[in-house]
């Protein structure tokens, strides 16, 4: 029955990982704007792809 303890620890660890992911996403600002990304994804790629590299945001 000690498997029970392992499982409980495993389930808590998984839940904690999800909590961590949530906190990370809030910190990265994923919830600051819940509208613009839905528009952005619909844009077609432009013909000239001179600089696709610099779309990162610094924080």
């Amino acid at each position, binding site marked *: 029955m000690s498997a029970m303890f392992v499982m409980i620890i495993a389930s808590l660890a998984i839940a904690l990982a999800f909590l961590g992911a949530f906190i990370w996403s809030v910190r990265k600002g994923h919830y600051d704007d819940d509208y613009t990304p839905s528009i952005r994804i619909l844009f077609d790629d432009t013909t000239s792809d001179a600089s696709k590299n610099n779309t*990162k945001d610094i924080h």
Partner: protein
Amino acid sequence: MEQEINTIIPAAGKPTENTCYHCGEACREETISADEHSFCCKGCYHVYDLLKVSELCDYYIIDGSAGISPDKSFFKGKFDYLDLPDVHAKILEFTDGHLSQVSWYIPKMHCSSCIWLLEQLYKFNPAIRSSVVNFPEKKVRITFEAEKVKLSELATLVSSIGYEPYISLNDIAGEQVKKWNRKRLYKIGIAGFCFGNVMMLSFPEYFHLGKDAFDESLRATFGWLNLALAIPVLLYCASDFFKSAWAALKGKYLNIDAPIVIALVSIFSLSLYQIISGTGSGYFDSLTGAVFFMLTGRFFQDKTYAGISFDRDYRSYFPVAVSVLTGKAEVRTPVTDLNAADIILVRNSELIPADSVLLSAEALIDYSFVSGEAEPVRRKKGDTIYAGGKQAGPAIELKIMRKVSQSYLTQLWNNESFNKPKEDQNQMLAARINRYFSVIVLIIASLTFAVWFFIFKNPETAFRAFTTCLLVACPCGLLFSSTFTNGNLMALFGKNQCYPKNADAIERLSKIDTVVFDKTGTITRPEDAEVAFIGTKMTDLQMSMVKKLATQSAHPLSRLIVKGLAEVHTEQQNISEYKEASGSGIEGSFGNHTIKLGSADWVGEQKIENDHRFSRVYVSIDGVCSGYFMVSIKYRKNLSQTIEKLRDHGFKTYLLSGDKPTDQDYLAQIFGTYAHLYFKQKPEDKLAFIAALQQKKHRNVLMVGDGLNDAGALQQSNVGVAVSDDINNFTPSCDMIIDGKQLSHLPAFINLARRGQKIIKASFAISLIYNVGGLFFAIGGQLSPVLAAILMPVSLISIVGFTTIASNLSASRILKN
């Protein structure tokens, strides 16, 4: 690279079907053709050219012709002040010397093309690393290489494609708008995580599973795990309840958070005791669940509208910098650095930042923003010009008299009404009910404790009964009812283009009994007048000459006529011998024709008795009067019905106008009596009037206004409502922003707010039923964890369900028409 402008077609008279490829407006004045596209003005064409050079013409594919013509008042050097070290440091969000980041508010952003273009800024200048748009907030965050591109160049680039950033004195004053509260999301996330896991670990307990020795050790483990999960909820997630309860206690009153804190602490200590002594498994599931749901409710209620600001003062309206003349050179200087005796240059439609003396020969100052006066006033050399006015016409020179912060206009903000908050948590409905509720619960709990302790001599049951009483009768239900009802009402108001600042504003709205209106801009629309020509029909050529003549003048009536003749194409014909006689009219010659526009005397016509409903502008061509333009102020649609409805419902209605008493008869009809109309009210008069209504007649006043001149009254009133035709426009600080088109629904909004209060009371009654049922078991000392675990979510779900359905139903019924 500069594309040649092929042809300029003077479209004489006949309307063309051309629409501008850039902005989508009909081409009226002139049409510029290039690359098989038409453009309505040079500004639009230049933007197109810029986009073409940078291969960004996909812009027009996304949302059609949705471009913006660049602001005509833009001039070179407008943003030079951004490079001043002082200003620079305050505008930048982030800098490491190499890369810098700036976040600008761009009011003109309106569609998906805007997002696309603003995120392609790096194509214009490789020194721009990236630009990310936040559409709801209308902001763009630009990351750029600070050594390669100056901040002023960046602002000029963004302005040149039509998206001029709005940088106000507020940004410089260092009071950045508070960032959206991420902390609350952390708290909800953690509380939800702990609640879910505590629930899971409590399941064996609910079903009384297993009684053997191993299960016993498992049970103890689960208990300790639950305790570990509950600690962060109590100490971190619920910390706001503790802070607010403590703040209230220090102020010597009991707010709604105080009994919640008592309940949370006593449930926690009882559970802690049960775990340590091994006598039970505690009520950690109810504890974490209550905190989680209360946080969610508050989050729902306090959700703000991104991009709408309720706390603007004069600083948001003032320009950051003005042109100061030192010798012959023009230096852009931050207005905070202006000193007395500085000489400034103010261009057309720029705001005058400080009280000053006019040095130029003549100026036409539009004070509508400050005083509500619709017509600009003429000022002569040596006259004092107060801050807040806008120059209408050519640039003028002014000598500063007082610093910005000591100007006449800014004095209004020193009034005490700006320093005391209107929100009184203690007066909210939930808090008022709570005062009785908490006392009764505490009495019941103490009586139960006393009975078990002294009569049955059973201290353990006494302690448990006491805490479980607090648990089931916890005012959480009360908090749920009010937060969820208010949250839902806020969403319903927002859906109908009425944006309350917070839940408290809705509650105060429900108590209103007096409504005060401002005139200019609030119930009238000064830019949008009805212009009709009465007389012998003019030819297209004559019409175009009249329009051309009217274009020359800055007088409001001329401007309205030009607007009314929008469909008329003007000839490429030169005007000569232009003359303007102040107070009479204007005159000009086109070849051998002479046109006069103005008063009856000016054209030599018999004066007809003046009707205040409209103004007449007579036209004479070559000395023959051909008729007059009837220019009438447009009132908002359904104005009279709205005010009538308000009066029928027993509201007192008043009009406070900064303008001259025009239209008095018409307005008296609407407002029912002359006695309730007040004209020529200065901003501080309006404030004093509202204060008098509140203090002498004990009225709850709703003020409807729009400009800075109403700022004091909006602040003093119980509920200040700012009317705006574009909610992203600048409105003075207020409790509620309403779209101009929705103003006629004002009675319905008040009605809905009242209904909201009834819904809160009803849903509170529902939670009371659960509380009484739970109390029945709690007093008997028999409330098992499973019963507590069921009771809490069931009561919550029924309350949330009830408030949602009830408020949606009342909203659809009240706002139907």
